[in-house]
């Protein structure tokens, strides 16, 4: 029972991290039809910027970060993610909106370049991510000792999910995003500056990826340059299984993938990723539009 509880909560925390990364991808694809391969780099930069910020508030040689430094890092990470996203959208993508293949190439290139930059600036090897003591500590749930950062990650994802649903359903920009996903030209014909909406959505996606990077670094306890690209693969799988463009679908798919990976890896030591690929294949065959998507 203890193991089940631990695996479930850890799987949900992993799901929360995937969701933070996938939500932005889903949003960007939903409105803009852009498969953003640079998204993993926003995640990596979020992780590194949080790590760097925390490092400013951590005593030399100490393994424990301060609460203030961590909170500041969690604030800085989405800002860095959003700024990079805006840069990529405005400078690289905007001239290519009518050329989808070029978009894939340019985001792939930007992702590789941004990832490589982290190697150059902070060395290619993994760096320890100092956390406040209370975050690295464990809490006991039904006999299972679960690291507190798992709970924080789950809580952050729930807040983000709730915020995104409110944004999409209650705000004018949310309506623009939903309408733009259906018929971009008609949104233009209503007098709405779709380019500005694109930039906003990209910034929001980048911010979520950056936030995911900060919490993901706490989850894994370290940061490294390939951090984003490795997790981006699973985030894409989450987006496809959830339904392209569906934020709720991404949340549901992230839970399925996170739990499947945790349980698969624990009970077979090798099958976690294999189960994920099997799930992806099953969804593509049986429900090509994804669990909650209406697009094939």
């Amino acid at each position, binding site marked *: 029972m203890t193991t089940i509880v631990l695996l479930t909560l850890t799987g949900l925390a992993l799901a929360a991290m995937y969701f933070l990364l996938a939500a932005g991808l889903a949003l960007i694809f939903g409105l803009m039809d852009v498969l953003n391969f640079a998204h993993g780099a926003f995640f990596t930069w979020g992780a590194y910027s949080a790590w760097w910020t925390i490092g400013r508030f951590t005593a030399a040689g100490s393994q424990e970060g301060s609460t203030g430094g961590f909170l500041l890092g969690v604030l800085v990470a989405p800002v860095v993610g959003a700024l990079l996203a805006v840069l990529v959208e405005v400078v690289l993508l905007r001239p290519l909106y009518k050329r989808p293949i070029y978009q894939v190439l340019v985001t792939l290139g930007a992702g590789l370049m941004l990832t490589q930059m982290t190697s150059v600036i902070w060395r290619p090897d993994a760096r320890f991510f100092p956390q406040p003591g209370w975050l690295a500590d464990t809490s006991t749930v039904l006999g299972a000792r679960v690291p507190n950062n798992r709970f924080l990650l789950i809580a952050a994802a729930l807040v983000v999910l709730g915020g995104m649903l409110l944004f999409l359903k209650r705000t*004018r920009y949310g*309506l*623009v995003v*939903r*309408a733009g*996903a*259906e*018929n971009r*030209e*008609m*949104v*233009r*014909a*209503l*007098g*709405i*500056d*779709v380019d500005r909406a694109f930039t906003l959505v990209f910034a929001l996606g980048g911010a979520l990826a950056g936030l995911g990077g900060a919490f993901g670094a706490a989850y894994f306890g370290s940061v490294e340059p390939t951090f984003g690209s490795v997790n981006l693969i699973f985030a894409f799988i989450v987006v496809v299984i959830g339904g392209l463009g569906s934020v709720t679908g991404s949340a549901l798919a992230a839970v399925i993938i996170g739990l499947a990976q945790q349980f698969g890896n624990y009970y077979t030591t090798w099958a976690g990723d294999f189960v994920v690929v099997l799930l992806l294949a099953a969804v593509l065959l049986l429900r090509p539009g994804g669990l909650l998507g209406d697009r094939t």
Partner: protein
Amino acid sequence: MSTPAVDPLLRLAGVHAYIGESHILQGVDFAVAPNRVTVLLGRNGAGKTTTLRTILGLVPAASGTITFDGVEIGTEKPHHVVRRGVGYVPEDRDVFAGLTVAQNLRLAQRPGASRERWALAHALFPDLERRADQRAGSLSGGQQQMVAIARALVNDNRLLLVDEPSKGLAPVVVAQVTEALAAIKGTTTILLVEQNLAMAQALADDAVVLDDGRVVYTGPMAELAADEALQTRYLGAGGHATAHV
């Protein structure tokens, strides 16, 4: 145009436009007088819809000028043109199926639009109030057309570009749509593309006929409607009053 002594609200001069490699508008010239209804007629493929989309900026004008209220708008982006007070009702309605009726209208309403316009749209189409929380995708074709027109009415637009509002609708709905457009006639300028001659006659003051991307007739609608020879020459209608022109 025979009617206006006043300055036109909209003027197209030598407008050329392409869709892909196809040269659709080949030097279109006409003017639309303020607070009147001008109908744009022509055979299928004559360039009527492209004319509306070019005015709005959805199709770029390759050359020529488009002047709205004395300002050149031919090079402006669609959202700038719309914010000058131009509303658009597209040919296929293009309501946002996943949004409710109320959300479709809220999205369309620009900041600063008057409450009176919102009230007017709902007064003309009372059904929309009752269906405010219904998804637009689940509405009938006629109800979707009402949403499409209401989206243009909720703003203080000075010019409405209305593309085939009767297309595919039952006669009773066509009558309701005609009534709604007639209600705003005189206070809003309308450039209407319409194949239904009865509707065009009921609404239009002036007519412009396009053929192969060029204007071949401008004049009073009454003159065109009364002259079967003109209709046959420009529209191929054969003088049948109820035929689609």
